[in-house]
């Protein structure tokens, strides 16, 4: 099924939003972390600044998120990984709450207890985890619930290519296929597990081939383009909704930034990221839209302005919101 104009424009707008979100975060994150404000001898202070802690950004990986989420409804579940912003934005997670959470504020999604790797928005059934591969079994559980409740909801587990070497991944694939669960496993191959290249971590070329071992379709999307992901995901989501079981999709995507912000990236050629940006999926989809007459300079500028206002408002909201009271650390160990 080809995407409608509405779907193409939605994917385009979301990709623009994700990119602006990540590039803004890249700047905000560095505030207060660099010399001379910090201790002498340090190159970088991870715990300083308005957004402390690790920060994994997804600039370049937008097509995976939007190509899949274009097929999802509010009732469908998404379980993301440690690099979760693009999935969250594509799943319509509350942008204000999510941003406040990264600033550690009381009105964050987790009231400041989760941070950027642990975003939970039950209203749109989104969660993520900082543990590689851990989300795949949880997506199976959401899918099992859908089945038990007699709904045609699906669950998506997003994870990196490094996670496909985890036991959790393999157990989840077996379980999903065994129980014919409506799950879509989406592997983002951004070539690196932190610094280790896929060729040094994974015994086979494509993780999509691993699907055969579990009796489910395996699809390789070998270009980092929204429409290509859209096609693969569309078939997988439709199959899941029909009750025919899971699909594994691997997408070859590009990570423009470091594994985390502050990553010296000594493991890849200096110009690699720059070269990857020559095939920017936002530019590619923009050109496709222009060719169809769905986008022109004026419309693009208007769209980007709207998106920018939304993103910048979220950052202002996060920055200006109050911190929790310190003793609130004691709350929410258990549900009331």
């Amino acid at each position, binding site marked *: 099924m080809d995407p409608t104009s509405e779907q193409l424009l939605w994917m385009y707008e979301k990709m623009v939003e994700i990119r602006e979100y990540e590039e803004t975060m890249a700047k905000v994150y560095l505030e207060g972390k660099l010399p001379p404000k910090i201790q002498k001898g340090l190159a970088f202070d991870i715990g300083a600044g308005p957004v402390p802690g690790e920060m994994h950004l997804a600039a370049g990986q937008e097509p995976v998120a939007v190509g899949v989420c274009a097929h999802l409804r509010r009732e469908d579940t998404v379980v993301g990984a440690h690099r979760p912003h693009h999935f969250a934005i594509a799943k319509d997670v509350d942008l204000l709450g999510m941003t406040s959470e990264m600033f550690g504020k009381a009105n964050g999604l987790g009231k400041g207890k989760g941070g950027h790797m642990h975003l939970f928005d039950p209203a749109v059934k989104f969660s993520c985890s900082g543990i590689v591969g851990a989300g795949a079994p949880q997506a199976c559980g959401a899918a099992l619930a859908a089945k038990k409740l007699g709904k045609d909801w699906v669950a998506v587990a997003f994870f990196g290519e490094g996670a496909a070497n985890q036991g*959790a991944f393999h157990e989840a694939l077996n379980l999903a296929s065994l129980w014919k669960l409506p799950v879509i496993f989406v592997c983002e191959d951004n070539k690196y597990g932190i610094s280790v290249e896929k060729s040094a971590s994974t015994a086979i070329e494509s993780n999509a081939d691993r699907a055969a071992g579990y009796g489910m379709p395996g699809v390789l999307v070998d270009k980092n383009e929204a429409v290509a992901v859209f096609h693969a995901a569309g078939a997988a989501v439709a199959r899941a909704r029909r009750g025919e079981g899971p699909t594994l999709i691997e997408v070859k995507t590009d990570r423009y930034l470091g594994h985390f912000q502050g990553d010296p990236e000594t493991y890849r050629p200096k110009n690699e990221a720059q070269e990857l940006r020559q095939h920017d999926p936002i530019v590619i989809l923009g050109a496709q839209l222009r060719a169809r007459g769905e986008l022109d300079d004026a419309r693009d500028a208007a769209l980007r302005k709207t998106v920018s206002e939304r993103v910048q408002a979220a950052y202002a909201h996060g920055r200006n919101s109050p911190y929790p009271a310190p003793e609130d650390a004691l709350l929410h160990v258990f549900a009331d």
Partner: protein
Amino acid sequence: MSTASKVRKLSMAEAISEGIGQEMARDDRVFVMGEDIGKYGGIFSATAGLLDQFGPERIMDTPISETGFMGAAIGAAAEGLRPISELMFVDFFGVCFDQIYNHLAKNTYMSGGACKLPVVITTGIGGGYNDAAQHSQCLYAMFAHVPGLKVVVPSNAYDAKGLMIQAIRDDNPVVFMYHKGIMGLSWMSYFEGSTNEVPAEPYTIPFGQAKVVREGKDLTIVTLSQMVQKSVLAAETLAAEGIDAEIIDLRTLVPLDKETVLRSVAKTGRLLVADEDYLSFGLSGEIAAIVAEQLNHLQLKAPVRRLAVPDVPIPFSRPLEQFAIPQVDAIAAEARALMQLTLD
């Protein structure tokens, strides 16, 4: 309805499966999954009879994939279902602890309370039947150590049913740990005190309420699980010698009923912790610390004594295992020794 008031005794295994079955009948969100819990009825019979009653959609045998199905329990609970997930032996948690301690225990906290995970993990604990180091541990202290998990460790059938129903109705993760040697299995000798009168109707026992199993004035034995049954037998021996032991069954570790412990120790002035978990960095140290923190409010007559597995893996051979895991005689001996001690 019979009014003949014949005492209905159940084994702990029967009481647990009855409690689960009654909750499943009441609430169709409740289901069970785990290894051999269907046709087999659970290796330790905790789900015996439930497959016939509820069918394979709600009594689900799983592959030997603990990470897979523990993670699935989390995912299903986040969607509003109430899974009971059996981890056959507690010793096996090593293959799935990430799902338990990094997700099940933390997602409620990390979501600021937005995410509720009403999962009950059931698991068999304990030794005494020569199953060696990988099938005989208790390890409840490891679960209790991680914030976000409630930990239930019953000592008898009556408590087990009420605590199980309470666990299923709780909106939080509960680890329900049953000692194999008090389940009343037909293939393993057990302590008969654990098979007791169990009302047929559903009932709950609140968490965080220890039970004074035996009142006494000379010393307090704080204990749990199978060690309660051993302590009761030890107390009978001690009584014949003129030593009057009070026995506290903690019943739940999280939440922990500190008040009942402190009240008893304040009364007797002597504390013995009898534990089947490892000695160091565990339950016995925790109880001792709770008392130590209150020494400005209570008066001890003797130093605290701790009886537990002496920091060795559980050995196979009968004499070795009987030595490593505290037995009735060892509890009595510790109590006698404690009565000889003073603070001078």
